[in-house]
């Protein structure tokens, strides 16, 4: 049962002669879902694959995972932690005989990206925690990634060395220099194979450009420039130039006492090298075009959903604060994550999202408690799958959620060592909001708010996902038949 077909409806919702984005609706029918019911044979069955990290419950602060990112091919998976380390996993080449599972991810390289620093002027420590990692597309044998803490961005080169020269005339094998008078013959050094060594070296350090804490970095589609965003400013860098960066957004008020809004995330458009978006703590997203002016303080588009008056509370603003913004691979849509929901926006429609998915609506009645224990300020990330058909985000109790945009079905899964048999299909979880709790459901009050999944990543091509709990990295993949 292959094949999907498209229907186009023109809906005249306004008097305008030209159809707006609202006026034109595309409906996509999938023959499979028609015949098997919504989400019939299409649903992915997720299986546990691997878990990385310490087993014991006593979590060392430095081991807390702070970012997870696949590279462009999906072969490499990088994690950053609170201790400033970067660990890169590499997928093993698929074993042709084992067609029922994809290659495992094993440690490829580990290095200390950032060290703690002390700002003597302010008498404050600069945390070494890695806030974000972004991979550059591969241009040669080496891999490059950008990693950032609160203040400094570094470009790392990760290269392999699997042979070394031997047979120097003036040096011994261990590196000591020989006495030239003892050299009686000459030979040509040759390369001999050696055990694979993966080296990480910092190639560029982009420092001293941010007064506030960096929350995002994003590489431009020109692969030459990138942006870094802190709470109040966004800077544009060239990857080759470290002593200069251009400020492209500045929302710092002249009088800091008037500050009411900060930048929470920013990203370049995947295809248009002059377009980027940034989100704010007030739940707005601004799309800017760098061609319009040098300082993009005036947005080209402002995406904001009007507030639902029936849900208004003192926490409305806090829960509307956007913690993550991600463009779809196609560049047509962008996704935002606020405290309770995930929203999909069509770049052509600014006044409301085209899709909204509730992540954990049962928390709405607990907002005051979550405010008290600061959980309401948790910054959850979100991600797209390779085909932009499914979005994923994390929640509490080590739960994570996936929303299928086509079938409109969603699923809640748990990252836990209890389900750690490979190829065992994960059982969907359900939270009981109120009333009688069914068997296998978990009540809201039993949720562990210490166990939060803030960082998730989806392989760019396959159905392989990486989910970070506090200090463990889980890798799940779909059940291959």
């Amino acid at each position, binding site marked *: 049962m292959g094949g999907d077909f498209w229907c186009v409806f023109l809906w005249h919702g306004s008097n305008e002669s030209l159809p707006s984005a609202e006026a034109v609706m595309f409906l996509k029918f999938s023959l499979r879902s028609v015949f098997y019911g919504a989400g019939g044979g299409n649903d992915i069955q997720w299986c546990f694959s691997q878990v990385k990290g310490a087993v014991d419950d006593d979590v060392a602060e430095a081991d807390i995972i702070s970012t997870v990112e696949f590279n462009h091919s999906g072969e490499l998976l990088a994690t950053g932690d609170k201790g400033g380390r970067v660990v890169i996993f590499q997928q093993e080449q698929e074993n042709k005989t084992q067609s029922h599972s994809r290659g495992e991810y094993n440690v490829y390289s580990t290095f200390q990206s950032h060290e703690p620093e002390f700002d003597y002027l*302010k008498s404050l420590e600069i945390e070494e925690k890695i806030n974000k990692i972004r991979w550059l597309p591969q241009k040669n044998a080496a891999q490059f990634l950008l990693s950032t803490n609160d203040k400094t961005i570094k470009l790392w080169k990760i290269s392999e060395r699997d042979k070394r020269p031997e047979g120097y005339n003036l040096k011994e094998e261990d590196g000591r220099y020989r006495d030239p008078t003892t050299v009686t013959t000459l030979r040509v050094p040759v390369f001999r194979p050696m055990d694979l060594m993966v080296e990480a070296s910092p190639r560029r350090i982009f420092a001293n450009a941010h007064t506030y804490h960096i929350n995002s970095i994003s590489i431009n589609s020109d692969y030459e420039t990138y942006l870094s965003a802190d709470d109040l400013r966004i800077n544009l860098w060239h990857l080759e130039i470290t002593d200069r960066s251009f400020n492209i957004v500045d929302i710092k008020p002249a009088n*800091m006492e008037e500050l009411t809004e900060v930048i929470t995330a920013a990203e370049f458009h995947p295809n248009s090298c002059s377009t980027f978006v940034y989100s704010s703590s007030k739940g707005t997203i601004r799309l800017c075009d760098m061609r319009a002016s040098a300082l993009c303080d005036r947005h080209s588009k402002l995406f904001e959903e009007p507030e639902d008056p*029936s849900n208004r509370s*003192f926490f409305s603003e806090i829960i509307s604060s956007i913690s993550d913004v991600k463009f779809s691979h196609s560049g047509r849509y962008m996704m935002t994550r606020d405290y309770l929901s995930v929203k999909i926006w069509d770049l052509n429609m600014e006044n409301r999202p085209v899709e909204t998915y509730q992540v954990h609506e049962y928390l709405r009645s607990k*907002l005051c408690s979550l405010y008290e224990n600061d959980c309401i300020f948790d910054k959850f990330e979100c991600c797209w799958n390779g085909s932009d058909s499914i979005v994923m985000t994390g929640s509490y109790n080590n739960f994570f959620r996936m929303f299928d945009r086509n079938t409109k079905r969603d699923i809640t899964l748990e990252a836990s060592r209890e389900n750690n048999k490979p190829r065992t299909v994960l059982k969907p979880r359900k939270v009981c909001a109120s009333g009688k709790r069914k068997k296998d459901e978990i009540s809201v009050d039993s949720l562990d708010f210490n166990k939060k999944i803030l960082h998730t990543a989806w392989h760019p091509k396959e159905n392989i996902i990486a989910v970070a709990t506090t200090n463990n990295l889980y890798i799940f993949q779909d059940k291959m038949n």
Partner: protein
Amino acid sequence: MGEEEGLHQTPFLDTMFVRGLKRKCFDGEEDIEGTLAGIKAIPSYNLQRQSLLDMSLVKLQLCHMLVEPNLCRSVLIANTVRQIQEEMTQDGTWQMINTQSTGQASLDRLVSTDILCRSSRDQAEGKHVPAYGTFNKDFENDQAQDSSDTMSTASAVQAPRNLQSSVWEMENPQENKGNFQKSLDQIFETLENKSPNSVEDLFSEVDNSYYDLDTMLTGMMSNTKMGHCDSLETFSSSTNTASNSNCKSDLNDLDHIVEILVES
């Protein structure tokens, strides 16, 4: 961190706040006055709002010793505080406070961050006053009055968490409202937009001499950290908030900082 504990501590707060603007305001107080049934009813909206305000102000005060506080979080909390203030102004609650305030120091007397720091230093000298009491303190003039104010204010903070206290409060509603709102008065002095020192002061520089506005904002009250962490210790022991763990690590960091400063 006490999340589950946190969730159970404020069930009433949650139900009230979820309903947002569908509050009963003064109607709510009718439920409370008098009978035991009133105790079981959801505490009044004003009380809840006050408690949220208290919590928010405490959160704004808390600062990390060594690491800059999260600006986004601070901004969101400050906005919440402003919201509450605006609503109270619209309610007329603010006016009620004004009429009931008894020979207060003039509204020009502002409870700025300076004062918060000063009272923290007072505590360092041995006066045991919960840090929340700083909102009450009106300098040296009102020392005698302050102790009673402090007590009622402290109990107001704890009321939602301790039914015992709320019963005590219900028994003397009028008297407590007077003290209660007097402290509210002092709190809102900090929020008066027309005053140069408002809650926005929490973002502005405390010490002109050395620091850029930028750095002061992000450092919050960085040059008063020591004083604050002293107050944090006493405060945390009396209110047992979820900030306990922060305070303990803050104190270790405090030692570290003192070491560094002493050596330099």
